[in-house]
């Protein structure tokens, strides 16, 4: 297939707000977006060339340079790492004689890493040409390596590589309630738009993405914002490392989600909904489109939903940027721009997608909203705590016997979850992902609820054998990779944190690094532009407070250490001489002293 940029642009009606989807189409044909293609797209869309280049370079899934015909990306979450991803990746790199990220000379393959792919219950995982492969083992890596060597196109690879398993270990309200398609819509119509919002408010439903804003209040604000056009956006950009509960909801409960979006559309007076799906879940695209089509045929979407209102839903696929989970960055991305969080106020409820009033809700929130619309506020109020009504779906992974999806009423203790998942000798639990809370063994009595330990869904367990500093180092690397770079504190702070954590973990850190880690984390917390930056220091600050001895054990006694690393400086020489033996390394202080 040859690339025709203007034909692709025409297919998207020359609409510049569809730039991200247009770039996906270009990538599908050529595997990269070459500079002349960027120029052609900019011309066809009437955008400054630099703007298109900026978008291409912003998203991890786009590239302006050729990558391998096979683009292998190992998921780099800590749970993948604990399951052996680093060894598997090294093995694969060695067998192709490649460096990380390097393209083989024949253009066949490149092997790198990507942020958490949401397969933590079945890791280690990878993406090959944007297709997900879970449960990697040396044998599966061997098979994949052979297929790549044989230049077998990915769509002809054996089916047994790709299936994504569903591990639902505990069901409660959301995961056990069956709803016939249309039931929630009918209930909402019978109740009326204003009364539906009122019902949602009374249910105490709070946003399940982590921030916990009242859903009813959000809907009411959007409904009363001036203007004829409104939008419902579902945030399915589940990027928080360790979170995969939306994957399950989208795979097994899509009807309920679309029902919730449609109810929201009816309630606030929106006729268009957009589902923003993270690019790491390409295996969900076809099933979701099929569900949407079935609902259109059943009269549950389209010009006349139940003969009462117009509402339809469009699917938008992200392109690998965690920051787009922030609602205003997500909207920017929907508009075909770099995912940079906006200045607020104004908020999306008044100035959202295309500057129109917009509700942005998490997948789980909208599923819960569909059930409240059907069964009333009491349905949610009956479970959970007074301040956190309803249930929370947790994605449990790490050192547990049974990783998977667990739905509990709010207020469940961390210990209860650990017991149910079969965790032993638990050293720490990271609740809510890297941006959430790191709990030590003395805090396992604490409860999952907005008023105690809030969580967007991640629940990663670390037993006594794990090095918690290596865990934190992984998290700092994640934030450095995902910072959008808009504001100074987050852009520079995340990078400095990752560098200092790397030094501490490798035993070359100083007391000054530890002091600076706290300082940088606090500066990011106080001055960053959005939630990514304000929370990026959390794992470091939590670890300093709760695992301080681990830091001190790793430090050399010096206050200041030279940042110049002799051994690292030798790396180019080693490469040039193809040596990697002991004599080509400065291994420790003694050997350095012995060298002439």
């Amino acid at each position, binding site marked *: 297939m040859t690339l025709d940029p203007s034909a692709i642009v025409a297919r998207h009606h020359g609409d510049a707000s569809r730039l991200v989807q247009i770039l996906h189409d270009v990538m599908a044909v050529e595997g990269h977006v070459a*500079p*002349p293609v*960027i*120029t052609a797209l900019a011309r066809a869309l009437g955008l*400054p*060339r*630099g*703007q298109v*280049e*900026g978008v*291409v*370079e*912003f*998203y991890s899934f786009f590239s302006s340079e050729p990558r391998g015909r096979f683009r292998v990306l190992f998921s780099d979450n800590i749970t993948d790492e604990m399951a052996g991803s680093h060894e598997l990746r090294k093995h694969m790199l060695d067998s192709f004689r490649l460096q990380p990220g390097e393209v083989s000379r024949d253009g066949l393959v490149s092997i790198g890493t990507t942020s958490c792919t949401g397969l933590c219950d079945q890791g280690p995982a990878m993406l090959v040409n944007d297709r997900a492969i879970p449960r990697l083992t040396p044998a599966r890596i061997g098979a994949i390596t052979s297929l790549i060597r044989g230049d077998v196109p990915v769509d002809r690879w054996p089916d047994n590589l790709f299936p994504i398993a569903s591990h639902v270990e505990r069901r409660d309200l959301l995961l056990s309630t069956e709803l016939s398609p249309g039931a929630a819509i009918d209930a909402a119509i019978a109740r009326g738009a204003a009364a539906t919002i009122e019902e949602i408010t009374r249910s105490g439903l709070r946003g399940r993405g982590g921030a916990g804003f009242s859903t009813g209040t959000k809907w009411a604000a959007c409904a009363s914002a001036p203007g004829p056009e409104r939008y419902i956006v579902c945030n399915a950009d589940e990027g928080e490392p360790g979170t995969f509960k939306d994957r399950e909801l989208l795979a097994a409960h899509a009807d309920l989600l679309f029902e919730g979006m449609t109810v929201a559309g009816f309630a606030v007076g929106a006729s268009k909904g957009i589902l923003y799906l993270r690019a790491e879940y390409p295996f969900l695209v076809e099933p979701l489109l099929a569900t949407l089509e079935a609902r259109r045929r059943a009269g549950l979407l389209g010009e006349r939903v139940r003969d009462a209102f117009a509402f339809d839903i469009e699917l938008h696929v992200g392109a690998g*940027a965690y920051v787009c989970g922030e609602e205003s960055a997500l909207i920017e991305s929907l508009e075909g721009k*770099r995912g940079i969080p906006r*200045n607020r*106020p104004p908020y999306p409820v008044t100035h959202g997608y295309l500057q129109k009033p917009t509700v942005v809700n998490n997948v789980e929130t909208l599923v819960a909203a569909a059930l409240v619309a059907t069964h009333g506020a009491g349905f949610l109020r009956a479970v959970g705590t007074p301040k956190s009504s309803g249930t929370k779906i947790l994605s449990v992974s790490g050192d547990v016997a049974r990783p998977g999806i667990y739905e509990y009423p709010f207020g469940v203790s961390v210990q209860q979850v650990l017991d149910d998942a079969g965790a032993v000798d638990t050293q720490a639990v990271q609740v809510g992902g890297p941006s959430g809370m790191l709990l030590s063994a003395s805090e396992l009595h604490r409860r999952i609820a907005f008023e105690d330990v809030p969580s967007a869904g991640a629940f990663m367990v670390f037993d006594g054998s794990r090095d918690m500093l290596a865990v934190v180092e992984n998290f700092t690397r994640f934030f*450095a*990779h*995902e*910072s*959008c*770079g*808009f*504001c*100074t*504190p987050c*852009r*520079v*702070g*995340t*990078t*400095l944190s990752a*560098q200092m954590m790397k030094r501490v973990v490798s035993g070359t850190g100083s007391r000054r690094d530890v002091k*600076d880690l706290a*300082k*940088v984390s606090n*500066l990011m917390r*106080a*001055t*960053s*532009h959005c939630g990514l930056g304000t929370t990026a220091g959390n794992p470091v600050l939590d670890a300093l407070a709760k695992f301080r001895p681990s830091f001190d054990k790793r430090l050399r006694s010096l206050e200041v250490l030279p*940042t110049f690393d002799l051994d690292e400086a030798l790396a180019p020489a080693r490469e040039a001489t193809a040596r990697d033996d002991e004599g080509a390394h400065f291994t420790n202080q003694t050997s350095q002293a012995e060298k002439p």
Partner: protein
Amino acid sequence: MSTEKPRPTFQMDGHDVPFDEGQSILAAALAAGRYVPYLCYHPEFQPHGSCKVCTVKINGRTHASCTTPAHEGDVVESNVDELNDMRKGLVQFLFTEGNHFCPSCEASGNCTLQAVGYDLGMTSAHYSPLFPDRPLDASHPEVLLDFNRCILCELCVRASALVDKKSVFSLAGRGIQKHLVVNAESGKLADTELSVDDKAMSVCPVGVILRKRRGFQVPIGERKYDEHPIREVAVQKQKGE
């Protein structure tokens, strides 16, 4: 009886600061002669709040003062040690991120980053420098681009798009890889529509966008911030003087 309604005020460091409806804390403070350090703000452009150096505490919470509208009765802290330490930390971040060698820089003495650093009592960049590789662009006959000094304030991006209507500059990349690019397939300034009388030529707060053959015309020691401290210059600039 006066027909003129008295302007609403907020409090900054114990002083009343009057403001107009919709005006930001920063703009109102500068207009009232109260200096708040900043880098990416410019009175002629919509603020976008990326440098965060103008961070203040409003009713106890930190906000970028350039993007936060003032409200009657707000209690704002600005010139206090805690905030000045944060600002110094942010300026140190910028010195760490780029390649800033003041003694050999043509912009020394005219540079806002340098002046704000001095003003905040910064004596070193503190962190290990990142030493990014940022090649110069000398392709344009009249203009040199030295990306080493870029602090990503986007003033040239905004000026070129909004005033010059040329969009010569854009930002690309993400996180620490974010960088300034020019609007040409070759990536070279010579292939853009930039001309020396563009607004974009005059807004750079550091030393990225330089006129060729004008180097060191004004001797070091007689430059903008040598003559007047940035506290005075910033307040004058807000008043359009």
